[in-house]
């Protein structure tokens, strides 16, 4: 019997010919990523366990990307970035993207591919649940805690239970003009629930995958964790290869699922049958169509984060916002500095995207995680009271974006932008059809 892509990567990295779901194996780690929230405690554990003078197992495989609490006056948060800075100097780390320098990047899950760390066939761990984003590149990537990260820093290894794989098959040759990858993953999470993929791999496949850009695929794999998944993965193809080769010279080996691989289950979706989706407060699986929620009250719109703050997300939002004034407080937060620069240079009908947002009355923030996870009270866009927000981010449990009295609707950048323009929840098809005419 064959193996899935995930099983093959784990077998190869544990020195075995084959592995099966349920096996516990120790794998060799290709990349470990950490950031300002979980890096400092991981570093503390590393020194406690391996000694004050200990060196990391391979300084070329440790990537430190501060991104969570960057533009804040919080003294503890700023102290934590200092801890990273001191560790990077002590360990002579080549891949530390320091705050306040030209190398500062912003959101780690978007920065990793930009900097060439998401290579097919490799194993990547990160101290953040959305590390699963990197599975879009045919990599095994998952989130871990501080202790596990410290263990990798000292040994280069970690134990993994081999997950079963759920297969999500997409039919269709192109995305309908109103549909975004965010709608697809919100539909799937709504169907299987926030624990519908717990301990499992979500493999996204089928002819429809060819219609999805790398950024679309990242939106899918990013939210595998929102269904409880261990990792999300897409088989690499020429789109993957073109992206990765444009970002790194390092060689990589593409891995594919065998035709006779065994799956936990198979789930079929046709793009043509799908519509703009929303996750209502307070759970990512609390699904409704945007049409069903048409007219619901909102105070705020937010476009940003690892899942909804990529360049294609802002292009989509700009298509709808262009020429309008927003009726909600609308926050625009590019995931990375590269995307922030692109907002200045990318144009739509001759106007830079950033100008489209400014002219519409949007508030523009600096590249970082910002209000996606609330953060310190002075965080840009944070919900500090009873605000009702529609957001292109990925999680909406109570208090996720700040106050536990606030409410968050999750939706695609199209739906968020359409709602920002009208002031209430709005199905973006209204605007998309106008654009076509």
């Amino acid at each position, binding site marked *: 019997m064959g193996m899935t892509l995930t099983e093959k990567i784990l077998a190869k990295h544990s020195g075995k010919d084959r592995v099966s779901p349920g096996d*516990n194996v*120790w794998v060799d780690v290709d990349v470990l990523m950490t950031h300002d*929230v*979980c890096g*400092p*405690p991981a570093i*503390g554990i590393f020194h*406690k*366990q*391996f000694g004050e003078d200990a060196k990391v197992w391979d300084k070329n495989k440790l990537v430190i990307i501060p991104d*969570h*609490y960057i533009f804040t006056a*919080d003294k*503890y*948060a700023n*102290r*934590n970035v200092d801890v990273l800075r001191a560790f990077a100097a002590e360990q002579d780390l080549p891949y530390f993207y320091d705050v306040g320098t030209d190398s500062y990047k912003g959101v780690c899950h978007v920065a990793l591919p930009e900097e060439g760390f998401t290579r097919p066939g490799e194993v990547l761990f*990160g*101290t*953040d*649940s959305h*590390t699963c984003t990197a599975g879009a590149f045919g990599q095994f990537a998952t*989130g*871990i*805690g*501080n*202790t*596990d990260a410290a*263990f990798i820093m*000292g*040994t280069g*290894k970690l*134990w993994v*239970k081999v997950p079963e794989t759920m297969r999500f098959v997409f039919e269709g040759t192109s995305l309908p003009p109103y549909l975004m990858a965010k709608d697809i993953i919100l539909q799937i999470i709504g169907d299987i629930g*926030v*624990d519908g993929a*717990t*301990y499992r791999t979500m493999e996204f496949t089928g002819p429809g995958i060819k219609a999805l850009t790398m950024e679309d695929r990242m939106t899918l794999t990013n939210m595998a*964790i929102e269904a*409880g998944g*261990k990792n999300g993965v897409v088989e690499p193809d020429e789109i993957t290869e073109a992206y990765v080769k444009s970002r790194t010279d390092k060689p990589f080996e593409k891995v594919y699922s065998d035709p006779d691989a065994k799956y936990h289950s198979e789930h079929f979706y046709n793009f043509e049958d799908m519509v703009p989706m929303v996750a209502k407060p307070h*759970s990512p699986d609390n699904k409704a169509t945007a049409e069903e929620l048409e007219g619901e009250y909102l105070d705020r719109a937010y476009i940003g984060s690892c899942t909804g703050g990529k360049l294609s997300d802002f292009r989509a939002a700009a298509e709808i916002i262009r020429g309008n004034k927003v009726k909600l407080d609308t926050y625009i937060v590019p995931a990375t500095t590269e995307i922030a620069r692109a907002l200045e240079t990318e144009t739509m009908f001759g106007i830079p995207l950033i100008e489209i947002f400014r002219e519409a009355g949007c508030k523009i923030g600096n590249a970082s995680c910002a209000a996606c*996870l*609330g*953060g*310190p*009270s002075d965080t840009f866009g944070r919900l500090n009271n009873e605000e009702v927000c529609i957001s292109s981010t990925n*999680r909406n*449990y*109570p*208090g*996720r974006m*700040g106050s*536990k009295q606030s409410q968050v609707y999750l939706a695609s950048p199209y739906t968020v932008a359409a709602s920002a323009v009208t002031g209430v929840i709005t199905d973006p098809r209204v605007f998309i059809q106008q654009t076509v005419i």
Partner: protein
Amino acid sequence: MSKNSEPIKGKAFVLGKNIDTDQIIPAAHLVYSLEDPEERKLYGKYALSGVPASESGLPQGNTRLTKDGETQSEFSIIVASDNFGCGSSREHAPACLEIAGIKAIISPSYARIFYRNSVDGGFLIPFESLEDLSKDIHTGDELEIDQVHHTLKNHTQNKEYKIKPLGSVADIVHAGGIFEYARQNGMVPAR
């Protein structure tokens, strides 16, 4: 954490389903040091502070895990419904519960990163129940977990339930975490 097989006794604190890591420890509090002996106590103070008041300490609700101004809880065992610990990978979640004085959790299911962090970090023991006990057990009930016979006794209600054996993570739990386990197995040099 109880690293041996002795019974774990204490008062229950009961929660509903999908208690995510932002409810366990809101993101604004993730900035404190886990090493500094005084600063780390703040995690005990804010543990479970993101749970909506009506859902905190069921069935009545409106009960905080740690009382105002305190960092240690009177409760020792959390009883929760499905998917406990979903959301982020923050290890501060099991850590804050341990700092507050929680020794074990009883839930029918866990989000995998929270479960893994609890075990690998040696913070507390995540036991799996055969069924959802969050409706049966009340906050404040006196509980006892028998790790040898895999049972949970509710002394207040005079009831007993089966719980699942720890399975493949038992060795790491009983070693006290991944580092202790790896030292016992020669993967990490002894100190």
